[in-house]
């Protein structure tokens, strides 16, 4: 029983780490520009389909296809940001929500047109299949890989934000955009780069998600709710907040569905509503 619990908790944590990779970019860009980008998961879906195409048609190995997903999602997102999104930075939430939800609709329909509505499975390399035995417990190899990847990304992000010049600029712009602009920071291009990085991470998350939750054209919608919960609960612009919120959500989701399948989803929404009521800025939000 205890062993069972540990494995379920670990699975939940791995799912949480997947959510972290998917959502951390949105948290930072929302904190930076207050742009409510509901199309974030659509870029994740784009990353997922990139990996599918790269592995099936181009015979690329999985580990090489992952960076490709990152790069393509980043490039496509920055193209959208420069041409469409930037017009709406001062247009109010409703317009931002509508535009980006429209984009999710279009993306879902386009992927359905080109790839069909079915699931898109991929074949993982041998070393990521099967499970690893530690004592009497069996952990999925892919889930361990996922956790290591997410911890690596979290580490890189923290180092990048806290200890580099560019990170200092991002933090300054998140804290107070107007003062940062007044000091001569080019907030506009900082945002473009951050947006590209954030969407790239979403693309990577979408690629990593194929093996865990599958990939179909409704991905951009289905996981949007999870990502928004992570961002809202963790607090805008907070990497640590996103990490904690994603880990909690993943663990609650998987254990809830395992032990109380009837009301698991209900408990998560209830938890979110209560938490946002008590702390509208999320666990670690500053403003």
């Amino acid at each position, binding site marked *: 029983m205890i062993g069972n619990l540990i494995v379920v908790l670990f699975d939940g944590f791995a799912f949480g780490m997947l959510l972290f990779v998917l959502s951390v970019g949105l948290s930072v860009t929302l904190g930076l520009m207050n742009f409510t980008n509901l199309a974030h998961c659509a870029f994740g879906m784009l990353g997922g389909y990139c990996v599918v195409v790269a592995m099936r048609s181009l015979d690329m190995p999985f580990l090489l296809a992952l960076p490709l997903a990152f790069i393509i999602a980043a490039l496509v997102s920055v193209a959208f940001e420069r041409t469409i999104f930037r017009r709406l930075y001062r247009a109010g939430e409703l317009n931002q929500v509508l535009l980006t939800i429209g984009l999710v609709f279009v993306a879902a*329909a386009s992927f359905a047109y080109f790839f069909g509505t079915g699931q898109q499975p991929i074949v993982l390399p041998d070393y990521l299949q099967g499970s690893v035995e530690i004592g009497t417990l069996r952990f999925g190899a892919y889930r361990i890989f996922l956790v290591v990847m997410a911890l690596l990304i979290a580490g890189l992000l923290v180092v990048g934000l806290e200890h580099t010049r560019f990170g200092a600029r991002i933090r300054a712009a998140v804290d107070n955009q107007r003062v940062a602009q007044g000091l001569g920071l080019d907030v506009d291009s900082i945002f473009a780069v951050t947006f590209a990085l954030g969407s790239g991470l979403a693309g990577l998350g979408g690629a990593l998600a194929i093996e865990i939750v599958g990939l179909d054209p409704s991905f951009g919608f289905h996981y949007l709710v999870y990502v928004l919960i992570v961002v809202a609960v963790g607090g805008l612009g907070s990497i640590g907040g996103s990490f904690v919120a994603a880990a909690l959500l993943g663990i609650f989701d998987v254990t809830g569905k395992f032990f109380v399948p009837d009301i698991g989803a209900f408990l998560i929404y209830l938890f979110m509503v209560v938490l946002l*009521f008590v702390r509208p800025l999320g666990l670690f939000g500053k403003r």
Partner: protein
Amino acid sequence: MRTERAISGPAATWLKKRNRISTVEIAFWLTTLLPFVLFPSYLSLASQIAIAALFALSVDLVLGYAGIITLGHAMFFGLGAYAAAVLAKHGWGEPLTGLLAAALIAGVAGFVTSFIIVRVQHLALIMITLGLGLLTYELANSFSSITGGTDGLSVEIWPVLGIFDFDLWGYTAYGYALAALFIGVLAARRIVNSSFGLALTGIRENSARMPAIGSVYRVHLQKIYVISASMAGVAGALLAETTGTVSLDTLSFQRSADVVVMLILGGTGRLYGGIIGAIIFLVARDRLSDLNPQYWYFWIGLLLMAIVLVMPGGVLGGLARLFQRNAK
């Protein structure tokens, strides 16, 4: 305690002028009668449109006038639908009292949640409305002994006023839904053209300044939220009664999103925006029903993006600007 005073002077005259019924409106309501004679085979579609329009109108009151962005209004629509259906299932299929029960239950739910809604803003507000909607859906799914779960309920509804039976062609259904929509519009019209309605617009435009001039803005928001919730509940009950069935789909996120799309399409904060939007949305979906629903959403998505980028204010907003330009 607040005392009600009769307002007089230029402000009252101005409000009265706004409240006057225009010839365009009369012409519009006369055209809504046309389906009875011209397209009798489309009456069930017409009643769907009237119901969707009433739902969109209820969302317009909170979103268009009071500025509360909601992605979970299907919660009240579904509650109303289930209230009427459960009542009918337990042997009381009288439609008008069904509507009242739906309005009451949805209103109570609106009152309870309004305490949360008025205390949060921005992303937290969007997430809480979304979360409450999803929560209600899951709740209805769990209590399948009452709601019928994924199978839904199918119920027997008595004739309206004891005379008009719900027929196969939808004459009664459309007449009934249209009458409800008409009363809903009259009520909403009275609300938005009152000093209370103006206070709501003020809150939408600047929520920091309204308290500064002494407006009890949270109470105002709570009031309009409850009114809107009841109206959405009535719309839901209409759907349940005219179709004789209710399913979980009345509570789904899809329904919350669709109604916002309709409202945006027609134009927010204009009373008739939701109606026009519902007509365009549902007629287009009916015409394009051969298409796979996946592709139908491609066009809806494109339309949404186009409206935000080129035609803020929707169809009615665009028309209004066109007329203003010509008048100059």
